[in-house]
């Protein structure tokens, strides 16, 4: 490790880290917002569920690099536009979360849903006030997977020259210099852990009602 180099490049690294955070978090939020209605739709209809979940599964298998390259053609954006990365990662997040949201709604006990209906909740009220809140633990579990997966997928965008922590890898390889590579890996891992921790905290805050598991 060349500490002196790190010190000199500090500003650049912070800049790359900032981009990395943005490119990870924005698609995560957008993806969740899109996956919520889609997941609800899949949950509502026995016929739509296999279709949506199937298509989502297929989307997830498209190699990320291919998507990064193809999207500009579809969206009409420039290849270096960070918007491509946001769009691609949003697609991956949606692909991952559609099933999660549908399963979360499915996890709500039938008695609970029936009780909401019997008390006169309209279906949107039941969804917002009962089913989604009760499904939060399942959704956050899916969100954790999506967050960590996004952190690593973003780095692939370095190959297109879009600034983020992955740029440290390409730089290191070109210079045959390990310090940026190690710094990049460490920062990615730390970022993934922090996002994961934040989602755990958010989940805890939203679900004070779940039985506390006493650590033995």
């Amino acid at each position, binding site marked *: 490790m060349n500490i002196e180099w790190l010190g000199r490049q500090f500003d650049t690294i912070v800049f790359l880290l900032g981009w990395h955070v943005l490119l990870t978090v924005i698609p995560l939020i957008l993806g969740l917002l899109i996956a919520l209605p889609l997941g609800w739709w899949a949950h509502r209809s026995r016929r739509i569920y296999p279709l949506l979940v199937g298509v989502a599964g297929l989307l997830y298998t498209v190699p990320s690099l291919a998507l990064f390259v193809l999207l500009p053609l579809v969206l009409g954006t420039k290849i270096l536009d960070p918007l491509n990365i946001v769009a691609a990662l949003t697609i991956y997040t949606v692909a991952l979360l559609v099933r999660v949201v549908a399963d979360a709604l499915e996890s709500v*006990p039938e*008695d*609970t849903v*029936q*009780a*909401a*209906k*019997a*008390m*006169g*909740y*309209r279906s949107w*009220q039941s969804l917002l006030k*009962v089913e989604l*809140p*009760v499904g939060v633990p399942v959704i956050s579990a899916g969100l954790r997977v999506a967050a960590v997966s996004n952190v690593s997928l973003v780095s692939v965008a370095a190959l297109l020259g879009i600034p983020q922590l992955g740029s440290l890898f390409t730089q290191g390889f070109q210079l045959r210099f390990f310090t940026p590579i190690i710094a990049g890996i460490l920062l990615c891992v730390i970022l993934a852990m922090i996002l994961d921790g934040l989602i755990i905290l958010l989940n805890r805050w939203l*679900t004070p*009602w779940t*039985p506390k598991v006493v650590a033995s």
Partner: protein
Amino acid sequence: MIKFENVTKAYPDGTVAVDGLNLEAPTGKLTILVGPSGCGKTTSLRMINRLIEPTSGTIYLDDQPTSGMDAALLRRRIGYVIQHAGLFPHRTIVDNVATMPILLGESRQKARTKALELIERVGLPASFAKRYPWQLSGGQQQRVGVARALASDPAFMLMDEPFSAVDPVVRGQLQDEFLRLQSEIGKTIIMVTHDIDEALKLGDQVAVMRVGGKLAQMASPSELLTSPADEFVADFVGRDRGYRSLGFTKTAGAVAIGEEAVVQLGASAEEARAKATGAWVLVVDGSRKPLGWAQPEQIAGGELKREHLNLSGIAAAASGTMRQLLDAALSSPSRRGVVVNEHGELIGTVTATDVVKAIEAEPHLETAR
């Protein structure tokens, strides 16, 4: 009033769950739907608040057909106690109970205050208010389910096996509490159960349904016991229905109550022997409340102490039923049943023979099958 007029429900797979049901649940009364598993009780109940839509026929709520109403608004007029409580896991007990009033536009503050009252009313400590459903036992959750249905003070209540998930002792307590509550609030209630004893104990009237969703008989509990409409009802009501029907016959002075000599704790063996009839003497406290029976032979020399008491006898109230009186006689070690007044003070004793004589003299019971 809730009225079924020719209501039929056929599920898409062809199962006819309810077949031409005609039934009227009068205002302010507790009507029980009872019948074997799968006879269409839950289906009938859920058609009232349109969780299930009837295939044909009409259901009226106070003479208005429910089919034309907005389903959500209809449901907000009816308290529904779902089987196994069906509480919202993500809300505290007090917020579970406050659900309906808040939905109906009441302020959170006011709804919670009312919910707290109701929690205590169904016999739960106020300290439970801040708990979540998983922190309560099954029986406690069912009480919360009842409180939740009562919270908006609806004129109608539907209850699907509300006391099913608890042991017989707690179930008895819940039933008693509920009867007391209903005597105060007088709601129009339809309750589903498959337990005939519960039906006979709670119902103002009982509708017995048979498999296939047909009404077999609708009658008061004592009428069901004394004149079942057919073999099916007779079988369903059970073998010891003759004995159980005594539970609906008031003693009201029909049985001769004999005098009983008594002793108090601390009495000597001689005194006890002098007062005893046969092998047993009745022991009472200073205010003539019965404590138990004792055998003078067992008071070896000393005085009568608590440890000499036999506690197996059950006292009957003079205002009670023939069944309670007979039970008092049969459960007593001396075979003399202790009879008390409304303050629990001794009046005298009866023998099973006296009770049976009174039963034989009762014209109504002679028609019992």
